[in-house]
């Protein structure tokens, strides 16, 4: 895995699948994100962006989750597959 590949979930375009490398920060937001099943090594499929550009919808552990871009920014990911728009 190259270090250049490192991005946050916020930068990922819909249609891509990524793997969680690290979740930055601490406290309620981080706990909530992890409680919902986004932990190190989890696969996330970025499904779509809301019509007004924020929040985003992802598939994680077999269900649909929405989170704001501000929150997806603390999730560091590496890309697994390249998908179309």
């Amino acid at each position, binding site marked *: 895995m190259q270090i250049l590949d490192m991005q946050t979930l916020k930068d990922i375009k819909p249609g891509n699948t990524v793997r969680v490398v690290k*979740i930055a920060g601490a406290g309620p937001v981080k706990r909530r994100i992890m409680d919902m099943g986004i932990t190190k090594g989890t696969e996330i499929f970025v499904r779509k962006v809301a019509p007004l550009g924020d929040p985003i919808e992802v598939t994680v552990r077999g269900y649909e989750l929405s989170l704001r871009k501000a929150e997806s920014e603390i999730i560091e990911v590496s890309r697994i597959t390249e998908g179309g728009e």
Partner: protein
Amino acid sequence: MSVKIALAGNPNSGKTTLFNGLTGSNQSVGNWPGVTVEKKEGKLRNSKDVTIVDLPGIYSMSPYTLEEVIARNYLIDERPDAILNIIDGTNLERNLYLTTQLTELGIPVVAVVNMMDIVRKSGDRIDTAKLSKGIGCKVVEVSALKGEGIMAAAAVAVEMAQGGKTIPQHSFSGSVEHALAHIEEAVLHDMPEERQRWFAIKLFERDGKIAEKLGMKQESLNHIEHDIEACEAELDDDSESIITSERYAYIGALINECCRIKDRGKLSASDRIDRVVTNRWLALPIFAVVMFTVYFVSVTSVGAIATDWANEGVFGDGWRLFGIGTDAYEAAYGDFEAGIAEEPDPASFGAWIPGVPVVLEGLLDAVGSPGWLKELMLDGIVAGVGAVLGFVPQMLILFAFLAFLEACGYMARIAFIMDKVFRRFGLSGKSFIPILIGTGCGVPGIMASRTIECECDRRMTIMTTTFIPCGAKLPIIALIAGALFDGAWWVAPSAYFVGIAAIICSGVILKKTKLFAGSTAPFVMELPSYHMPTPGNILRSMWERGWSFIRKAGTIILLATIFVWFASNFGFVDGGFGKTEMQGSILAVFGTYLAWIFVPLGWGDWRSAVAAITGLIAKENIVGTFGILYGFAEVAEDGAEIWVSLSSAMTPLAAYSFLVFNLLCAPCFAAIGAIRREMNNRKWFWAAIGYQCVFAYAAALCIYQIGRIASGGGLGIGSAVAAIIVAMFAYLLFRSAKEQGEAGEMNFSAS
């Protein structure tokens, strides 16, 4: 022997359906003390001594959300005899995460895997025997929707409640277990053994609320802190994340072992619906259509018919059963208007059912009751009851819509679509519905705030929804526009503009105050699969919400209505106390004393003060009160008769300030009752009402005083006050937030 079973599970796991299935109609709905979260309790069908308590839907037992804290406090303080943990079988992984936490409590747990019918239909397999072994509690398969297996599940729970044991099977990595053992030994050894583990994990996670609950001394905390830090250093993560990650790792491995899930890649029906419904281009038009439908049916068409029926039929002269004979009556009335016939009696056409007041009046006349009693009954009590029940039919229609939108999964999508717009003002995307409904009537609008999950968003919505002009405020707008602005077109739109501006400004200001500071909840929300809701569940939800309004809001509305009726009909006349016209009533005296308060607003006339007070019964009363006070027995809806009197009593500027004050100040008693019911907390209730009145006063004062300067009225004390208010307002609006929430986006002034 009485048994208490707690029902716990994730939101959207079918918990409500299961609860309804288990208890039937045998349930009571209230609130958890002091908060806006619903609490349901019920007796298990056919067994009087088994109580089921429905806990709020939660994903975890973290200390960060209100629902989670309520649920875990209940579990550790009340210690129910067993926990019935409902699990969505189509979403095992995330649901089991909560299960791993529940099994640690030392309370017997029964895992109920729901939606098994869907799981089987999609060809997936769950080996429940293996699953049971892996998580350490009994596992029962059910379909709550079809009612399959639920009574058997309850029977297992009752059996477990009588001496059963659940021992968690998952363990954490060596160094975590080491630290946990240390914590148990150091500070928890006084506790029964089976309860220690849960507390040890919480202390390991540095859960401050639990440390406080246990009354931990700082030195003990320092002592265990050493163990935690050593473990964190070894695993290179914070303790909370270590626990969460390891739970999910254990579940992941368990699922691989006991589940066969067919092809995940295929699009389900729900995915296909979602593709269209939240599509980049179609989402907003679809949203607009859905909202229009909800508004049109529940406010404009069916809702209006229902409200008219309740207010003018049942609590008015009377109504016709199924409308039989209405056409004939209208034809006869047409003849009367054309001057070719006598005025028809509506009661002699079709299936006429007289209204409650008519029937009661007849009864009172028959028993020869005195005049004052008759008036108390009719104008005080019946009118008060009518004010409560008059809203109910419309509300029920709206609640049915809300229940449908929630149950089918679209409500979560509304939050998804509208979040970006509303979060700037401290509101949720779901606040759109209360505000939209509020344009029709604030009462169901406030009640609709129930659909918002986050308590701070919900409170903010309750506080600001009634700023938007509701249907009853339209006559006031028409009165002021007609009397002083020549019916200018811009008066009505400006009222809506003032309302929207008030919501936005309040959102920004309140968000920065202590009340709401730092409470930006993370918007990490599940978008549940679309489901076709069952009519039974929708009807039940509709009835529960309607009934809770009648019960909890009804009292305050009734009492307040009777009080104002009394104050406006009685007074000191000719040296004695007795019934009088409004001009000589207590209310008029009160208005005279109170009038000076409104002098800085430009309308210090006692009549305006009295009208503002009677407006609390129903906002449209303001028009009627002016009519009475200016000597007209009855006025048209827009008060055309009193336009002349009013225009000589007020300047246009003062009239506009009067309008703004009455649009923004405390709403009618019905809405006040709804606010009280939804806030469920005295402090928050008074904070809301107080804020609305202060905000209205300040806004009206500024409009009048600044308007006066602009029109060359000269400076005075009032203008100085206005200048101070404007400066304070600007400060409150643009200052930086007290505590910046991690989620950001709170600092409005920066953008």
